[in-house]
């Protein structure tokens, strides 16, 4: 007997809003969360903008708590608290409660700030909180501690696929009866001159400094790279019978996941998209869905010249002519790219899209790239059909990691 997994709570802190409701409202309205950076160091870089969170953690938590948490850990706690409350603060055995929260880079801001301290003040100047703050499992560990989760606390790391991989890992934990409830998702806090200089050196970032809010433009002919974002998203995943027994609000079902790797290049996408196609097929098989069931897809589409087209081609090859019935949204056009948080906030968006029967828009497409042959939801949100429907979330990471999650209405 397969244990089914449903979503019973959502939380988020993003460039568009302090929580899920405000983020979703801005997303559906087609707002951009991208802004010029205010720091002086921006002048050292070819890129002067990013998508910072809409609301600083300082407005959402106590100062003393904040000072021993990396920014990524702060995002994780803010979003988890919202999600846990949204799920009705379930009364669950701690041995049946787990946490799987990813980050692509971990506490990189702490690492670099403390290195500055070391150089300036010597070893005594390095905070004793440095290691718990910089470790990539820190966000998961802090949420696990707060909720006293004892079924397992995990952190998959696969660059920009990390958040989706965490949700998939959580799905398996519940299916295999390791837990009844998992707090799952991903966070990222890497808006700092060093990681930005690194991405810029790869020519991965947009340099549209004269129009930051128009810089993230997946599928547009003149896209020139992604926009770095920060924040995170959390889903409370729960075994279906457990959720029903406590009368929980159930958003939808997480019906499956597909995983693959390219074996092609450390950063460039495989132009044939063979790995992506396999991940999609695995996800459909794992979810027991047919290509005809899919009505919406939140694409990875980061606004890089090569990646967007490679993904669109792979979608057509994997779904065949049924891709013509899929409303494809590239929400990074509004949020920027949250790296390890991306797959998580985009899963939150899919859950909301199924609930509201509304696919979010893709903004900033002035001239659709003719090489993109999928049905992109442009400019305005689009209604999704009634009845039982399903949607996919694509996430890919440097290293050639491909993760596809499948969600469906109950």
């Amino acid at each position, binding site marked *: 007997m397969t244990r089914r997994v449903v979503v019973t709570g959502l939380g988020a802190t993003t460039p568009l809003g302090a929580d899920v409701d405000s983020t979703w409202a801005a997303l559906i309205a087609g707002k951009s969360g991208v802004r010029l950076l205010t720091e002086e160091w921006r002048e050292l870089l070819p890129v002067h903008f990013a998508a910072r969170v809409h609301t600083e953690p300082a407005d959402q938590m106590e*100062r*003393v*708590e904040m000072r021993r948490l990396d920014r990524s850990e702060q995002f994780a706690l803010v979003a988890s608290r919202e999600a846990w409350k949204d799920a009705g603060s379930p009364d669950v055995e701690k041995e049946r409660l787990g946490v799987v929260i990813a980050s692509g880079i971990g506490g990189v801001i702490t690492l670099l700030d403390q290195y500055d301290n070391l150089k300036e003040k010597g070893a005594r100047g390095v905070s*004793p*909180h440095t290691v718990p703050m910089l470790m990539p499992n820190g966000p998961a560990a802090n949420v696990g501690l707060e909720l006293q989760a004892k079924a397992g606390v995990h952190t998959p790391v696969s660059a920009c696929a990390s958040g989706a991989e965490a949700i998939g890992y959580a799905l398996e934990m519940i299916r295999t009866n390791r837990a009844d409830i998992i707090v799952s998702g991903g966070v990222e806090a890497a808006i700092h001159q060093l990681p930005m200089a690194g991405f810029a050196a790869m020519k991965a970032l947009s340099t549209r400094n004269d129009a930051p809010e128009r810089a993230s433009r997946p599928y547009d002919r003149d896209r020139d790279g992604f926009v770095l974002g920060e924040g995170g998203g959390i889903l409370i995943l729960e075994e279906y019978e457990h959720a029903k027994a406590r009368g929980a609000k159930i958003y939808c079902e997480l019906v499956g996941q597909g995983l693959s790797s390219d074996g092609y290049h450390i950063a460039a996408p495989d132009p044939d998209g063979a790995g992506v196609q396999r991940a999609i097929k695995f996800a459909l098989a794992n979810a027991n869905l047919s290509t005809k069931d899919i009505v919406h897809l939140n694409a990875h589409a980061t606004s890089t010249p090569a990646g967007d087209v490679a993904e669109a081609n792979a979608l057509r090859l994997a779904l065949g002519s049924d891709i013509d019935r899929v409303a494809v949204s590239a929400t990074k056009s509004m949020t920027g790219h949250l790296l390890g948080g991306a797959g998580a906030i985009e899963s939150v968006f899919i859950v909301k899209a199924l609930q509201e029967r509304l696919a979010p828009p893709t903004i900033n497409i002035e001239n659709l790239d003719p090489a993109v042959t999928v049905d992109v939801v442009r400019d305005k949100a689009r209604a999704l059909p009634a009845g039982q429907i399903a949607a996919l979330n694509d996430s890919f990471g440097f290293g050639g990691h491909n993760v596809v999650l499948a969600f469906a209405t109950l």
Partner: protein
Amino acid sequence: MALSPADVLAGLKEIVEEVAGVSASKIELDKNFTDDLEVDSLSMVEVVVAAEERFGVKIPDEAVTDLVTVGDAVNFIVNAAK
């Protein structure tokens, strides 16, 4: 430079409040850092480093284990500054 116990206590209150979020009104000489004020081992390291900077004294690691109460810390710092 000699320091008065009252000055050291006042300074320690500020440090412990800043580092561990304990209200200064709760910080008294007989209070135990770990049990009464919930200053954990990592925060205690921060308190020690901040106290060294503020009072211009050295507090060696082997001495820290003996600083059980706020009064122990005040005495150590006053003596070290003599």
